[in-house]
């Protein structure tokens, strides 16, 4: 057991730091052209798609290097390495694993160059957690599929160029996981209608997406017909290390401590309140647990040992921290804590109040906490399925 890095890994960390020192100005000094230039520079470094094989334009970074890159980027508060989070997180890896050569050549470069934004068409009005029960129909007609149905809670749909779409090509199946087919569909296809939904924070990031006789070439099918469930599963499993998230969580905890230091409650410093101090300790323990869980799982991967569904552990920690840290900040600061940006009395410009309304995108997207608990109970503890 040791936490040291090899000389090569240390050199890589130094390279990332040097790059960030040169190319990441403080937030206030980032001008209009900054983002475009940033995306080009990190692309030149081959840090976009850093885990992907070189032959598809990826960086072929080792697991440890990936962790180092994520950690350093998070420490520096760097912006994302691409405009399409989903493209980089699972659409790209899914295409690399299941796509045809033609699909790889067609889609991968655009994802790496941030030329297209992807969204993910999984959930339906009647099928969210029970994803395998989806009903959106894709019917084969000649060299096309004709898609009819509806998706919902589709994050990014209002501005996405493409959607990775889960459809059903067969309805008469013994297992609902069979007969699912994954399609890659341009969002400007005739017959697609997007109706944004306002969330409780006032944002319009997600939407209903309606499909009426949408024609999708068979060449846009990802993986085999009827085997789309495997594509979905591997895509969701592509979210691996939580190193970057942990770094952000520690940074948030420091902001929370600053808030405690500058807050008086009933005329006394909040930092003198034993209950407040305990909560801060609890947050730190949870974040540190995420960190060392992540390192243990990373070690397993490095040793080539199979990783089961342990990563659900950190997802659940993150979910509860996302909710509790903001909620704590809002409660700590009383009625000032509920003031939004625009109010003169807002705490830290309303940052905590605002983010206290943002947690569902992290907590519910990608599997609710109850689904994560089912996964642990069934796949790791071997309890009977629901």
């Amino acid at each position, binding site marked *: 057991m040791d936490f040291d890095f090899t000389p090569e890994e240390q050199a890589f960390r130094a390279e990332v730091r040097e790059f960030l020192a040169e190319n990441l100005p403080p937030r206030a000094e980032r001008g209009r052209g900054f983002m475009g230039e940033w995306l080009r520079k990190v692309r030149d470094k081959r840090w976009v798609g850093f885990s992907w094989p070189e032959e598809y334009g990826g960086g072929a970074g080792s697991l440890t290097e990936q962790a180092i890159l994520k950690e350093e980027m998070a420490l520096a508060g760097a912006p994302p390495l691409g405009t399409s989070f989903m493209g980089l997180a699972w659409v790209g890896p899914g295409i690399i694993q299941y796509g045809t050569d033609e699909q790889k050549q067609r889609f991968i470069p655009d994802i790496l160059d941030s030329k297209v934004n992807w969204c993910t068409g999984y959930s339906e009005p009647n099928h969210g957690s029970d994803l395998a029960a989806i009903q959106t129909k894709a019917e084969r007609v000649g060299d096309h599929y004709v898609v009819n149905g509806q998706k919902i809670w589709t994050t990014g749909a209002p501005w996405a160029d493409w959607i990775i779409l889960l459809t059903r090509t067969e309805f008469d199946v013994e297992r609902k996981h069979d007969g699912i087919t994954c399609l890659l569909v341009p969002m400007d296809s005739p017959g697609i209608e997007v109706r944004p939904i306002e969330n409780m924070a006032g944002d319009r990031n997600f939407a209903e997406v309606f499909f009426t006789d949408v024609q999708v070439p068979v060449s846009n099918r990802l993986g085999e017909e009827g085997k789309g469930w495997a594509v979905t599963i591997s895509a969701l499993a592509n979210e691996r290390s939580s190193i970057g998230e942990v770094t952000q969580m520690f940074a948030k905890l420091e902001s929370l401590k600053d808030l405690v230091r500058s807050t008086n409650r009933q005329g006394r410093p909040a*930092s003198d309140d034993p209950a407040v101090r305990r909560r801060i300790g609890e947050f730190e323990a949870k974040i540190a647990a995420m960190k060392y869980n992540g390192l243990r799982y*990373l070690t397993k991967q490095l040793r080539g040992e199979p990783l089961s569904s342990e990563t659900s552990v950190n997802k659940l920690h993150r979910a509860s921290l996302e909710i509790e840290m903001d909620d704590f900040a809002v409660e700590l600061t009383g009625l000032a804590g509920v003031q939004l940006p625009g109010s003169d009395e807002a705490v830290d410009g309303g940052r905590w109040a605002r983010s206290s309304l943002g947690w569902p995108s992290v907590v519910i997207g990608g599997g609710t906490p109850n689904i994560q608990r089912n996964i642990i109970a*069934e796949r790791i503890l071997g309890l009977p399925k629901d």
Partner: protein
Amino acid sequence: MDFGFSEEQNLLREQVLRFMTDACPLSVVRAQNGGLPRDLWQQAADLGWLALIVPEAHGGLGLKWIDLAVVLEESGRGLSPLPILSQALAATAIGRCAGDDVKREWLPKVATGDVVFGIGLYDDPTWIDAKGVGLAGGETLTGTKPFVSDAAGATHLLLATRNGERLGLAIVDAGDAALKAQPGIDRTKPFATVSLDRVEPVAAFAMSADDLAFLTDCGAVAATLEAIGAAEAVLALTSEYAKTRIQFDNPIGKYQGVKHRLADMFIDIESFKSLAYHAAWAIDDAPHELPRAASLAKAYAADAFARIGIDGVGLHGAIGFTAEYDAQLYLKRSKWVRSAFGDADYHYRRAASLGGL
């Protein structure tokens, strides 16, 4: 970067597990009565477990706490009544605080198990601080020291003392002291009140407040490591029951009220396991990180294992309440872990202080 155990450590783990299964199963554990099971102690000594962290120069194996960690974890899984934790703390205390002559005399006997240490740091049951040390030090010791761990089976006692602001440790021949057992919830973690009447310590040496904090952190980490094994045993026992107990025509483990609680147990154990391994590593390899690491691990485990102990019994229903069923033994251990070497409240607040608040 490698946050996992070596092949040697894994072999050691298997050895301890085998010992606990073959020589010290729960039927044997149940038969203990606060004394030292001599034959088991000798086996542990012969297998080298008592010598692990003793330096080679003093007859030990010269390994680290992270090696001892696997022994403690597997001992905890079977609720071992052997005072390996107290012995390890004594080895650490003597190695860190005593002069060379004391080390030369005592450490080899610690390694062979010929000397068995009971250990008493704090007189105050809740005060994990130098102020909690009460027994007056001096040429001879007179007074009482409550909450001395593993005293009944010990040949010697290692007792924290104070002289004004100065702290010390005294080694006392157990035969020179009057022991009164303090019956406790967990019989595998026995305590006694030690009464001393003009007893001359066989050795005595100074201890700083930092030393005391370090020893307490080692104790907190050790208790947490034992709790990993114990909590995993509860989870295994309860998961198995949930798979086989049929109610409303289904195994109860099918119901989310049961399965989610078991999933939460898994999450908590995974988490304080990671924190405890890091803390155990820090003892020898990054002592400056130890206070924070020990507090985060112990705080998390103290509350989580307490809940696991309770729910392990509760999820079984009435059968879990019976003396015959093993779940209750783990609940009892969890009560000890909760308070030993500082509770969650103390450690969470300490973590906040160490974090600059």
